[in-house]
């Protein structure tokens, strides 16, 4: 997984490099922020790896991991999506590996070819990415982990693949169906397959391979535990919101200086550990957080604003700075708005269709990439018609700038509206502040209990 040159890895063609760049560009454009936390043990993995990840939204998950992982893995995907010839061609170009699912119909077609492809990719020193839940989720919890990943790993190990590890990855979306949302990728401690196989072989003396059901189930338990630690696994969305908020309050309170901005990765990791607490402790944290949140709502503050409030001139200065910034970016935002309004409306239209959240997480990025890509191509063509060869090049440089200006302008307006609201709520806020601070402290104490 490491980025350093590893002689054993397959040589990457120019096409591969291009695909990596495209994936990185798409991820940067589609998501506002992509944070990665790699456990120290995962950062030094340099050999073949079976990457296992939770699965919220079809294409979005694979895209995010392509953009984040040091080496692009071969993705195991259900064969049904090859049905469309165009998508099939894209998947083949990406080196995706089709898996047959019994639930897709067609009886007991064999997956020998899939296992063989995975083993070959791993023996060549590459990585394989599999979503072992087998389905996309609309809930913030893990579906039962199927044994595919464990069988691939044990099979490859039996076929002579040395140094193999299983890397658990948790993808946390702030709002998975929204564009420009934030994503946090949590890469957990790798599972050493060699060590697992050696330990078992020492116990029983029999060879350990993918036909050994006890070994497969045992390894699958390891995978499940590792995934639950890395990936979101909450009872329901309410619990997810409350525990995440509790983690945010705690991380902010531990900052060296009170700041509105916090490390979202730390927040999501802490929230993940809270989700694993016993039920009564989780209830206590959720209740304290709900109380604090109600208090905040009553005075019109967010936690970041409450703690980040320093001095009295702050509000006016903040308003002024945002106003100046907004005026500076306004002309570029206007151009950006004119260029991007049509693709934006197309994506909105797609978004208004009632897809399930997980399907939306596939459809929306694709629609956005298509609509914005097409529009930008049109602008570049117009620029070429207008002034010749420098036109498209200048357009290529400036189009992202205009889009960024629109985003910056909208952000400024949002912040200013919040600041105005806060000023109105301020008088009542000051009298209530002590109670609210007490409620806040209760949240932190529940988390640290």
């Amino acid at each position, binding site marked *: 997984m490491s*980025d350093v040159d590893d002689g054993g890895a397959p040589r990457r063609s120019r096409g591969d490099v291009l695909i990596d*760049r495209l994936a*990185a*560009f798409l991820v*940067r454009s589609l998501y506002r922020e992509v944070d*990665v936390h*790699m456990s*120290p043990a995962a*950062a030094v993995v340099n050999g073949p790896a079976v990457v296992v990840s939770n699965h919220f939204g079809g294409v979005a998950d694979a895209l995010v991991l392509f*953009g*984040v*992982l*040091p080496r692009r893995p071969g993705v195991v995907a259900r064969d049904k999506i090859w049905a469309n010839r165009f998508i099939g061609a894209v998947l083949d170009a990406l080196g995706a590996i089709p898996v047959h699912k019994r639930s897709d119909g067609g009886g007991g077609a064999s997956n020998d070819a899939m296992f063989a492809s995975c083993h070959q990719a791993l023996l060549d020193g590459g990585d394989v990415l599999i979503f072992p839940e087998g389905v996309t989720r609309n809930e913030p919890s893990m579906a039962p982990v199927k044994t595919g990943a464990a069988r691939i790993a044990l099979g490859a190990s039996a076929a002579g693949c040395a140094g193999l590890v299983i890397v658990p990855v948790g993808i946390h979306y702030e709002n998975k169906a929204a564009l420009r949302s934030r994503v946090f990728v949590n*890469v957990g401690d790798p599972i050493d397959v060699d060590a697992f196989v050696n330990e078992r072989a020492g116990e029983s003396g029999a060879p350990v391979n993918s036909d050994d059901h006890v070994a497969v189930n045992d390894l699958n338990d390891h995978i499940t535990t590792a995934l639950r*630690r890395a990936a979101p696994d909450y009872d329901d969305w309410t619990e997810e919101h409350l525990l995440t908020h509790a983690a945010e309050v*705690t*991380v902010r*309170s*531990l*900052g*060296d200086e*009170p700041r509105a901005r*916090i*490390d979202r990765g*730390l927040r999501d*990791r*802490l929230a*993940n*550990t*809270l989700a*694993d607490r016993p039920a009564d402790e989780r209830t206590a944290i959720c209740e304290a957080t709900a109380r604090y949140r109600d208090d905040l709502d009553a005075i019109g503050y967010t936690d970041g604003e*409450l*703690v*980040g*409030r*320093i001095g009295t001139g702050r509000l006016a200065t903040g308003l002024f700075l945002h106003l100046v910034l907004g005026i500076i970016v306004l*002309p*570029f935002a206007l*151009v950006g708005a004119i260029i991007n309004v049509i693709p934006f409306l197309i994506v909105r239209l797609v978004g208004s269709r009632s897809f399930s959240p997980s399907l939306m997480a596939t459809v929306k990025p694709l629609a956005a990439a298509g609509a914005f890509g097409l529009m930008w191509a049109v602008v570049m063509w117009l620029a070429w018609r207008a002034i010749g060869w*420098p036109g498209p*090049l*200048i357009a*290529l*440089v*400036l189009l*992202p*700038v205009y889009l960024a200006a629109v985003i910056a302008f909208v952000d400024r307006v949002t912040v200013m509206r919040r600041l105005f609201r806060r000023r109105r709520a301020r008088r009542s806020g000051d009298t209530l*502040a002590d109670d609210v*601070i007490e409620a*806040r*402290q209760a949240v*932190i*104490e529940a988390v*640290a*209990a």
Partner: protein
Amino acid sequence: MNDLSTTDWIVLVVITLPFVVVWVGTIVEVVRRPDLRGLRAVVWVGALLLFPVVAVAAHVIVRRPRPKAVEVPAGPPTRAERFVELAERRQAGQIDDDAFRAEAAALVPAAQTSG
């Protein structure tokens, strides 16, 4: 300056100005990039100075994405990092609840003020 037509002004503000900003930004980025040193850096800067349009566009296309998976811990872990790692150790069963509470209490501020 007074001879500029409205169109000229629009071109100046909306196209030339941001392009110059990106151009300067690109030069600064190339100079400061740790992985681009020696002859290659000189060639890049030279190309950026001589052929701004082509070189800036080329940089947009070939620029390597920001380094993935930054795992170089910058300085000692912060209090928040230590707290989260503590919670993760408890989750993994490496420390028990009492050990967690004892260490967590040392990190968490006793009384919070609004600053």
